[in-house]
């Protein structure tokens, strides 16, 4: 019971989801879906979700953790064959973007692979928004 409580208390993402949702506002993206990213203190290396994106629609995938620049946390967008299409981590500059924008040109299932590259912040969240 105590262990379960401790595990839950460690990754409360309410605040991060609100932060992610705020990042949708500036360009008029509407909220679609949120994900809790609990890497279980680092024992989980990657968290994968999938979503059906639609043709002719713009999507924004936002990220947040306890760091104001969400350092360490990034997402890679993969197509239905799991071929990488975009990433929020710019390796050259070692920069973690708070969001990525994509324009979908083919309706289908896409994968969102979340990872923590550095640091010890293994709890975060991600929100997808859309606009046409």
């Amino acid at each position, binding site marked *: 019971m105590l262990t379960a409580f401790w595990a839950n208390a460690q990754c409360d993402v309410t605040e991060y989801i609100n932060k992610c949702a705020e990042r949708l506002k500036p360009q008029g993206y*509407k909220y*679609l879906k949120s994900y809790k990213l609990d890497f279980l203190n680092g024992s989980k290396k990657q968290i994968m979700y999938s979503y059906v994106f639609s043709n002719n629609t713009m999507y924004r995938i936002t990220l947040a953790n306890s760091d104001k620049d969400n350092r360490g946390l990034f997402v890679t967008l993969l197509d239905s064959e799991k071929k990488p299409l975009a990433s929020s981590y710019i390796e050259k500059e070692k920069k973690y973007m708070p969001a990525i924008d994509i324009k979908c040109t083919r309706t289908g299932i896409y994968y969102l692979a979340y990872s923590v590259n550095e640091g010890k912040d293994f709890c975060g969240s991600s929100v997808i928004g859309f606009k046409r």
Partner: protein
Amino acid sequence: MKKIIVALSLSVFWVACNDNNNANQEQKKDEVKEQEVKKDFKADFDILNAMPDPIEIVDLVKSTGIDYDNSLLNKPENTEKYNSEHKMALNMGVYTVDLGYTNLHNKTQDAIKYLDATKKMTNGLKVSQFFDFEKIKSITQEGKDLNQLITTTGIGLDKMRQGLEDEKRGEAITLIVAGGWLEAVYLATQVAEKADRKELKEKIADQKIVITELIKMFEANKTTSKHLTEIYEDFKKINDAFTNIAVKNEEGKEVQVQMSKEDFNKLNQTIKEVRNKIIS
């Protein structure tokens, strides 16, 4: 004579009570059976999570410029009819989409009614704790911040999905998703009848991806209970109506929607029939 009347009315009362008791016992049996079904239901939570949110369809419907029409929506007072968990789950999906439709059109009075209907369904399904209804109601009444409203409702729906997954209530979550999807496609097909928009037709045709996944889930559970057999058969009709419909999207070429007038009419009719059965 008076005694006979009293005796008769007593016996009628007794029979009525007895019928009532029987009905209650039957209902309890059904409830127990539904509880058992919850455990047996095989749900693919990854697939359910991947389903596109119906708000995308409703947003596109709104963009056609076709006037707001609340006669298309399920009546809020129909909540009284939904007593079983599966009916509540299906119509919870329906009402959330109707709520989204009223909100996107900024129809505050109607939105409040659909919010109440949604709340009733969440109470019945014991998932109301995931929603901040006071906050949603206050944003709706102010009618200023549509994005805030969509976000707050969306966060509640996500928490509910997670909660149902944690409680292993796969049937409830599957039916909520299916009901919401059906209502959104119903609104899209109804509006597409009036507005010949390529984007809307493409969106409708794209739904083949969703029905393909839903039907797999219903097929895997069709023998679990009588109502799931019926739901499978109804959604199978929709799946069949999609047979000739396709979207061709080749690199460098314009997207081609393969959907003849007959295909559309058949789909439109099937969607309408199944949806009307679900809300009845």
